[in-house]
């Protein structure tokens, strides 16, 4: 069977599975729809959280990001997992004890203020909508680059599937589909990784393989360091791509941002008890760690394979590089998607890949080797995962599986985000602010209609992605770190935090982060409107806009505490609410 048919069959089978689950797990009421009736087993919730959390970016892009950043890629690995410690220790058990449906609802009740609730809704909408655009792109990449299906058809079929289980089942349908999607995703990620690790090092576990030796008895990481240095790059295990300060700030921003993402926090509202919420965060991280500890091996091994394909012989010898005509089939296949491009600049019929931005090395290479510049003019980092099975020479069904895994990763995250968006609209804005008197049945219908509208919006944005799609992901994490996390944490841990403090803190965090990003990326991302150049020299104190969430969070804490000190403390019933949230069994 050819690759195309096989891939479509595998993806079709997973879609049929998701629809089956949707019909089985319909929502009976608003509690089912918003928090799956608070009846999800903690291990099952951990698995669903992992699928919810691991997006197209984790599945398709992260290993490639690490491959090109080397050691510094750890900012993403630690940032995106370390946030779960903050969530498990500082938020999840207390918000579960509070026992309502949404994150803005907690902020509104705790700070006895509709204004606070509305600011939280606005943060939630900005964070979740920007995030959903990335997922729609992921669905598109999987369909158009792996399956060779038209982007529009791929996106629409993805949207129809999500529509089915999200509108029918709400959180309940989404949770059970996410469990299935986690299984598809993790199988698709680890199978090629195990095969590649076996081929290179003879060790099946990629986590061990990365620290093992190659066939020639050199350690894989030593050999990779050496080859990269020979080609004028930084060593793989050395700091690269960012300063130590920015790596530190980026890691912290991603950690706090992860803990403040509303679509993940709300997953801990779905378990029956407080102790389940504590444990469930651990299980979520177990399932996430399986992929996140495999990714560094996938990145390094894909980089090693890539370098050795281009440079099979000694660096600098005339026959050291691969002949353009003899390059492997997978390269030609990926050139057709535009993700990989070569240009034979010195017309020697061979491909040279080296760091021509390193002036010393470039001058030496030109003089001694006759190289006229880096000839791999485009290598999209997503290739490192997408082409992995082909590079390792794995059978077609594995390639089909990677496509299904990428789609599962994107759809599961999209569904979680869409639920956060629709419940903020139906529960926080409609039921909470505009029309508090509507019946549960009307609210459920409103939730379904806003879910459908959110899906249409996401689909539209997926088909017409704004040019700044990649930039706004940094914005989502920065805003979550600067606005929601500090406010939630102070709501639980600072009994005297009042409404004025919370509102000022959220606004200061939100606006300072937005302004700092806009200063370098342009106002509302309009090209050419940036005030300062977006380069390490232009950044204030050398702080990258993506890392600013850490500073925004500090500003939020500081201004909130200052304002709370000079204004009246919260009323007695609010202080009692805080007391009750802190203790598992209490009125």
């Amino acid at each position, binding site marked *: 069977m050819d690759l195309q048919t096989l891939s479509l069959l595998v993806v079709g089978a997973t879609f049929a599975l998701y629809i089956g689950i949707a019909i089985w797990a319909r929502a009976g009421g608003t509690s089912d729809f918003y928090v799956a009736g608070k009846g999800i087993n903690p291990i099952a919730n951990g698995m669903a959280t992992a699928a919810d959390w691991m997006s197209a970016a984790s599945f398709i892009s992260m290993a490639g990001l690490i491959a090109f950043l080397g050691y510094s890629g750890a900012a993403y690995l630690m940032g995106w997992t370390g946030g779960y410690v903050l969530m*498990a220790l500082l938020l999840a058990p207390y918000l579960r004890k509070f026992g309502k449906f949404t994150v803005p609802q907690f902020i509104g009740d705790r700070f006895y203020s509709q204004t606070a609730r509305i600011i939280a809704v606005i943060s939630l909408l900005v964070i979740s909508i920007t995030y959903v655009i990335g997922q729609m792109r992921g669905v598109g990449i999987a369909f158009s680059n792996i399956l060779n299906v038209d982007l529009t058809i791929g996106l629409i079929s993805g949207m129809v599937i999500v529509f089915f289980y999200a509108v029918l089942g709400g959180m309940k349908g989404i949770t059970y589909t996410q469990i299935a999607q986690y299984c598809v995703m993790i199988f698709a990620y680890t199978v090629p990784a195990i095969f590649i690790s076996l081929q290179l090092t003879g060790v099946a576990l990629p*986590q061990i393989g990365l620290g093992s030796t190659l066939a020639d008895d050199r350690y894989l990481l030593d050999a990779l360091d050496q080859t990269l240095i020979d080609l004028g790059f930084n060593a793989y*295990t050395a*700091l690269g791509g960012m300063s130590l300060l920015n790596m530190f700030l980026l890691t912290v921003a991603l950690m706090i941002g992860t803990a403040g993402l509303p679509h993940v926090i709300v997953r801990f509202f779905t378990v029956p008890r*407080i102790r389940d919420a*504590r444990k469930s965060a651990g299980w979520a991280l177990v399932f996430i760690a399986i992929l996140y500890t495999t990714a560094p091996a996938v990145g390094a091994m894909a980089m090693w394979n890539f370098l050795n394909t281009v440079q099979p012989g000694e660096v600098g010898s005339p026959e050291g590089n691969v002949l353009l005509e003899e390059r492997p089939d997978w390269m030609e296949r990926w050139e057709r998607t535009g993700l990989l491009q070569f240009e034979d600049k010195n017309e020697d019929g061979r491909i040279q890949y080296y760091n021509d931005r390193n002036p010393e090395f470039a001058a030496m290479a030109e003089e001694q080797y006759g190289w006229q510049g880096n000839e791999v003019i485009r290598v999209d980092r997503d290739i490192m995962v997408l082409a992995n099975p082909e590079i390792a020479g794995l059978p077609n069904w594995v390639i089909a599986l990677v496509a299904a895994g990428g789609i599962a990763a994107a759809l599961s995250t999209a569904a979680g985000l869409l639920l956060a968006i629709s419940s903020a609209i139906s529960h926080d804005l409609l039921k909470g602010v505009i029309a508090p008197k509507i019946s549960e049945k009307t609210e459920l219908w409103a939730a379904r209609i806003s879910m459908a509208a959110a899906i249409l919006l996401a689909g539209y944005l997926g088909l017409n992605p704004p040019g700044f799609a990649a930039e706004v992901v940094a914005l989502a994490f920065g805003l979550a770190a600067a606005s929601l996390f500090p406010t939630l944490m102070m709501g639980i841990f600072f009994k005297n935090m009042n409404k004025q403090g919370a509102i000022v803190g959220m606004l200061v965090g939100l606006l300072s982060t937005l302004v700092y990003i806009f200063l370098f990326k342009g106002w509302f991302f309009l090209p050419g409107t940036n005030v300062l150049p977006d380069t390490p020299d232009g950044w204030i104190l050398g702080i990258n806009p993506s890392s600013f969430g850490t500073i925004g969070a500090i500003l939020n804490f500081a201004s909130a505490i200052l304002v709370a000190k000079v204004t009246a403390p919260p009323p007695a019933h609010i202080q009692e609410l805080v007391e009750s949230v802190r*203790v598992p*069994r209490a009125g």
Partner: protein
Amino acid sequence: MSQEEQRSLYWKTNLRIIAGCLIVWALVSLVLGILLAIPLNHFSIGGYPLGFWIAQQGAIYTFLIIIFFYAWRMNRLDRQYDVDEQ
């Protein structure tokens, strides 16, 4: 002890446990994994330079241990102060 004092002692103990966990969390990831990673790379675990291993593998395993330890410790504390869910 009155119920109020009990509650306040329960909360203080909880804060101490959280502080301990977060110190380990920050020490492993931010200090060993980032600030001291380059000097730590002079040591190695198998073929992994130590700083690199902590940043790309070890920190994640540490996070897991912290979360499960906290869940276990808090369940014990809940029973000790008789505030656990029935």
